[in-house]
């Protein structure tokens, strides 16, 4: 203790030092960064054009010459398609959660801080959405407004607003009841200043972590939508859609057909484990 008494660590420094001792979180973060980089630089990295079909190579097994991860039912290079597929899957995972975070967190903060009738109005509206299972809601919205990436994003965003609102409302109510809010009010601070400098700072961490765990759900639901033909339409490369079209060939070449599933599984698992690790690293009560 006395050795570093003159060098106080800031909050983020202590978070970083705790993360450094957590190999699982670091590995997961590494994998996610890897997938993100692959998706961004897909045109440079992919060995072949993901839309080039070759009827002679249909369902080529893993390790075929020129097709390191085999080929799909139309003879397109699986490796290239998987790399390109990450682009849409990541967008479908991150964008709806991010938009829902902005809308949901603001709704939750207002509902939690103001309380009373406002809280009742916002939270009961959210409860209506809760009556449907999230995947059903996404299917219903997508089905109503039609297939396509934009509509998929919209329906996923709507699906994620209620849970994020609920989580941020709970956290806000919790923080609001703490003594330091009373102390801030006693020093004459306005409500908006209290929300900005006391509530958001303390609420955003937990809300953010909850959102990272939603990214994996979002990727899975998006894949499900594509699988049902409500998300991305062929020939676009998307992990969910690839899984859907390859499933008829599962008896012919199970290893190749499982690959998109493996990618969905890995990505969502990594997001989940990373959010777990972040939560314990960002926990103030040590």
């Amino acid at each position, binding site marked *: 203790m006395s050795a570093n*008494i*003159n060098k*106080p660590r*800031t*909050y983020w420094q202590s978070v970083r030092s705790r993360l450094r001792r957590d190999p699982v979180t670091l590995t997961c973060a590494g994998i996610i960064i890897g997938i993100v980089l692959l998706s961004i630089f897909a045109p440079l990295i992919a060995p072949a054009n993901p839309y080039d079909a070759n009827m002679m190579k249909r369902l080529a097994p893993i390790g075929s010459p020129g097709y390191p991860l085999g080929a799909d039912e139309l003879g397109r290079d699986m490796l290239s398609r998987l790399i390109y597929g990450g682009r849409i899957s990541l967008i479908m995972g991150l964008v709806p959660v991010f938009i829902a975070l902005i809308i949901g967190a603001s709704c939750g903060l207002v509902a939690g801080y103001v309380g009373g009738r406002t809280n009742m109005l916002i939270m009961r509206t959210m409860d209506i959405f809760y009556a449907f299972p999230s995947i059903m809601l996404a299917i219903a919205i997508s089905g109503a407004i039609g297939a396509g990436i934009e509509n998929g994003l919209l329906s996923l965003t709507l699906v994620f607003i209620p849970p994020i609102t609920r989580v941020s409302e709970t956290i806000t109510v919790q923080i609001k009841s*703490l*003594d*330091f809010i*009373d*102390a*801030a*009010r*006693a*020093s*004459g*601070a*306005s409500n908006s*200043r209290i929300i900005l*400098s*006391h509530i958001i*700072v*303390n609420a955003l961490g937990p809300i953010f972590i909850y959102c990272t765990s939603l990214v994996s759900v979002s990727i899975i639901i998006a894949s499900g939508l594509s699988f049902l033909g409500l998300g991305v339409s062929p020939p676009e490369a998307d992990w969910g859609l690839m899984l859907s079209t390859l499933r008829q060939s599962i008896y012919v070449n199970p290893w190749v057909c499982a690959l998109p599933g493996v990618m969905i599984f890995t990505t969502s698992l990594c997001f989940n484990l990373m959010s777990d690790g972040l939560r314990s690293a960002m926990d*103030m*009560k*040590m």
Partner: protein
Amino acid sequence: MAKIDKSFVKVRNLKKYFQTGTQIPFLKKPPAVKAVENVSFDVFKGETLGVVGESGCGKSTVARLLIQLIKPDAGEIIIDGLAVEKRGGISTRDLRHRMQMVFQDSYATLNPRMPIEESIAFGPISNGKKPSEAMLESKHFMDQVGLDPNIYLHRYPHELSGGQRQRVNIARALAMGPEVIILDEAVSALDKSVEAQVLNLLTDLKSDLKLTYIFISHDLNVVKYISDKVMVMYLGEVVEYGTVEDVYNSPKHPYTEALLASQPSMDPSRKLKTVPITGDPPNPINPPSGCKFHTRCPKVTDLCRTVNPKLQSTDNVDHLTACHLASNVTEVDVLNAQKGLNS
């Protein structure tokens, strides 16, 4: 302008009921917790008023009412001749420059994500001071409460000990430049040696900055040490008020007697003179009739069961108590009153 009234903080007939649950139309109104009822007292400038009483007697509610964290149902608070939230008086915003509060839980009252420098500067900044200026001043306030700014300025609350955190809380109160500080169990959670240090700090600050304290505690020894006047509360009401010497040496209310008697002593030869009161205080949702203490009072009379005694002076004008037996009323009067009630 000559001031005849010396009292700096003057509280008259303060009342606060808390509603339990929400009212549903057409149903009976849910019962209210009578947290504070008819509380009146005066604090003179430069004095310390100690407030004692059991848990749940409304001490903290009085504190929160004084600083307007909760609004009173009735009654008035007058500071330096200005009524709070009244026409021609003082606004809540201005009140907070004159009155500040230090809470019991030193950890919960500091934002865990805020370096203490910012916590101290937060009040002045939210009242329009330039952030750079307020940050600079927070160093000065840390010095004043005995924390080395070079070491602790950028620390987070969890890196400090309980005593240090409470010093930060005091510094934060001082940063608003108050004349009155309410200390709500401010030293109760600290261990004894640290408690003594913080108490000494408070005494020094009081004389240096000419502060007035309202010191809420359940520790009678601490209250005796720091206070000039004492107010004893029971179930939301003031039962006794007077100087420390008067109240501790010749308590007039049976509750005060019992409180003082129940105090453990370092002297083994000093045995408890009276039997300490037993049982819990009655439910404040449905307080007893008459004198609220009559259910536990060893000297209870019929009069106590029906008529709630008023706070009035005893043989000493400045020593007030709310007890039928201790006021100027003689025993004959009590007997007569009883006869009148019985007939």
